[in-house]
């Protein structure tokens, strides 16, 4: 890594950027333009963000908050746990001296806001022995923490073993490299059987013990209930947005999907996230009432569903392009929640989770059930065409939202989806959904330039007559 980069602390950069950025909202358009001149890359994210009004301020405030806490963790006697995006962090907020850092979110933020994204950190991981072919979503932010350019990590706790080994492997490397305790939830390839339910519950109980052991602090039942009740509210709000997205035109602004993705994986169970969702729902409701599209130019020409990840590299070029073309972004697999109250959950027992706050045990079981049904842990564990797995979920979501076509965007580090996306695409086409497989990297613009991706998209939408 370049010597000069070793001067900047990742958490601190984010903390200051976001907590300052929220004040931009109070400034005049002229002042904003003036400021943007000095932040040519961050502004690419801030401009469209601030156009959403209230939610933007809460969003920036939320992230300013989150990273400031991490920066001050040690002073405030808090321990920092490194975790993954498909792990519901609300459990950590039920312990008062624990703060989660979620690598994938950090990586996504760098690629959204910085010129070179986190590519320098990615390369640093390679330099210290991590596989260069590993998933870029972890390699980005992970490099910073392993280089000591972020909070000092006290423990590593995550899920994904058995679902995405590549992911679990990355966190295992981090734990070994930093020599800190590691606990990984493990997932069999099935989802709905009683056996597997039991497995999830026991596995999660061990996690609880692990956390208590390494934070020297017990779970406070009231705090746990409070967090889960908050999460219930958040699920309901997300479900309402999801539900309104069925309208034609879709009243949901595309950028909301980035905001939900980013916030839910770090602030699940926290009041600020509920506030953010509340403000988003108001806007979507308002659009829905007026029959307005969430697109800034107001005209919806196409509805596209992303079957895997979004594109976070190249700033928010994808969103801008969708806006320009009049394409409604119907979100991706990762911005989903599989609560039993979600509009697309089937009601088949075991497919969705129910929040039960009766007592400590029911709450822990609930958390286990939630984690087992986070978008990826649920969707890509078993065979892609098994019930309630990738194909099922994609088809039902595409149908409910009236998608015109599907796009696969991921990362070359994804052994999982790159082992079956060709099969997926075949089946989706057979079900009448034109499907395009993009070769770019959602977190690393070096793999395929935006120009190339854009050219391919243009071609796909034109040839398949989608616009």
């Amino acid at each position, binding site marked *: 890594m370049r010597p000069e980069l070793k001067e900047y602390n990742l958490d601190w950069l984010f903390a200051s950027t976001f907590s300052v950025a929220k004040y931009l909202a109070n400034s005049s358009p002229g002042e904003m333009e003036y400021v943007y001149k000095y932040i040519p890359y961050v502004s690419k994210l801030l401009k469209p963000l601030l156009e959403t009004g209230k939610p933007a301020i809460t969003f920036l405030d939320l992230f300013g908050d989150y990273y400031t806490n991490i920066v001050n963790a040690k002073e405030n006697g808090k321990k920092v746990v490194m975790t993954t995006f498909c792990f519901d962090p609300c459990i950590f907020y039920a312990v008062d001296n624990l703060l989660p850092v979620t690598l994938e979110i950090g990586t996504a933020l760098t690629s959204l806001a910085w010129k070179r994204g986190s590519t320098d950190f990615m390369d640093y991981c390679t330099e210290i022995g991590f596989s260069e072919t590993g998933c870029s979503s972890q390699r980005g932010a992970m490099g910073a923490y392993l280089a000591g350019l972020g909070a000092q990590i006290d423990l590593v706790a995550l899920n994904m073993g058995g679902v995405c080994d590549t992911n679990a492997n990355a966190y295992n490397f981090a734990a070994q490299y930093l020599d800190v305790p590691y606990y990984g939830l493990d997932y069999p390839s099935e989802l709905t059987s009683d056996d597997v339910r039991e497995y999830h519950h026991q596995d999660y109980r061990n996690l609880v013990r692990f956390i208590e052991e390494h934070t020297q602090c017990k779970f406070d039942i009231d705090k746990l209930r409070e967090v889960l009740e908050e999460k219930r509210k958040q699920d309901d709000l997300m479900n309402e947005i999801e539900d309104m997205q069925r309208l034609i035109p879709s009243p949901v602004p595309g950028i909301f999907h980035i905001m939900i993705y980013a916030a839910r994986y770090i602030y699940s169970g926290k009041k600020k996230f509920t506030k953010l969702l509340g403000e988003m729902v108001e806007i979507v409701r308002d659009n829905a009432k007026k029959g307005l599209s969430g697109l800034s130019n107001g005209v919806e020409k196409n509805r596209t569903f992303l079957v895997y990840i979004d594109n976070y590299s190249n700033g928010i070029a994808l969103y801008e392009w969708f806006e320009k073309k009049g394409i409604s972004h119907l979100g991706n697999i990762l911005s989903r929640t599989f609560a039993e109250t979600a509009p697309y959950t089937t009601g088949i027992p075991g497919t969705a989770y129910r929040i039960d706050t009766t007592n400590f045990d029911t709450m822990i079981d609930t958390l286990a059930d939630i984690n087992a049904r986070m978008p990826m842990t649920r969707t890509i564990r078993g065979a892609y065409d098994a019930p309630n797995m990738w194909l099922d979920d994609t088809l039902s979501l595409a149908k409910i939202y009236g998608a015109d076509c599907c796009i696969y965007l991921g990362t070359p580090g994804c052994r999982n989806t790159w082992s079956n996306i060709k099969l997926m695409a075949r089946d989706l*086409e057979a079900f009448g959904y034109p499907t395009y497989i993009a070769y770019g990297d959602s977190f690393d613009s070096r793999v395929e330039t935006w120009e190339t991706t854009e050219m*391919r998209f243009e*071609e796909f939408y*034109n040839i*398949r007559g989608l616009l």
Partner: protein
Amino acid sequence: MKTAGCDIGSRTAKAVIFENNKIISSAVIPAKLDPVESSETVIQMALEKAKLKMGDMDQIVGTGYGQQEIPFAHRLESEIVCHAKGAWWNMPSVRMIIDIGGQDSKAIKIDENGKVIRYTYNDKCASGTGRFLEIMADALQVALDEMGEIGKTSKERLTISNQCVIFAETEVVSLINEEKDVADIINALHRSLANRVASLARSLTIEQDVVMTGGVAKNRGVFDALSDGIGVPVKALDGIDPQINGALGAAIIASEV
């Protein structure tokens, strides 16, 4: 109505002049550094052969890697659509087109009206493109267009497996050092390229007739290896240079207004 199609590839530039459903003339030149220059030179060549002037053209459609740079094109159309159109016009029974270009390779599935149903590009690796053969011809110090002939005389069956072109080149270097016969190495290269491309067609599920277009289609070695690779016979375009197929398609599309 007189129309023209101009296809600016990364390696060659092609032009076709088209009138009442007939090819009047065509031209192929090696691409110059400046695509504008390439397009002007190649269209002039085609026009001269047809004893026509730029002014006589009612419609000109541009396509290919450098289509944005063609100054005289009235419309632009993607290579996919042009290749589909050209091959279908030449052979209505065609349902699948495999095109190996310099920059990328494609498999295209079309319906009985020549409309594109599905298409796919080479996996993000250049070992499935025309560039692969160029770099290898370089390493072997043979001319690109001689490779087909030389490959025929192969006796021993070698394998070149690496996905990365440059590493594949190192494999070639090691084979040379083992004093393997150049013909055998070339034959292995042909199979390696053909098999990479075959997987594209297979991933769309093969449907006959299958034709191969693009300059590489002239390379008998790759052509035959491709038939083995997809398990059904690959056909050659009927009586035209496979290299001009993209430009031809563009010219046909130009005539459809």
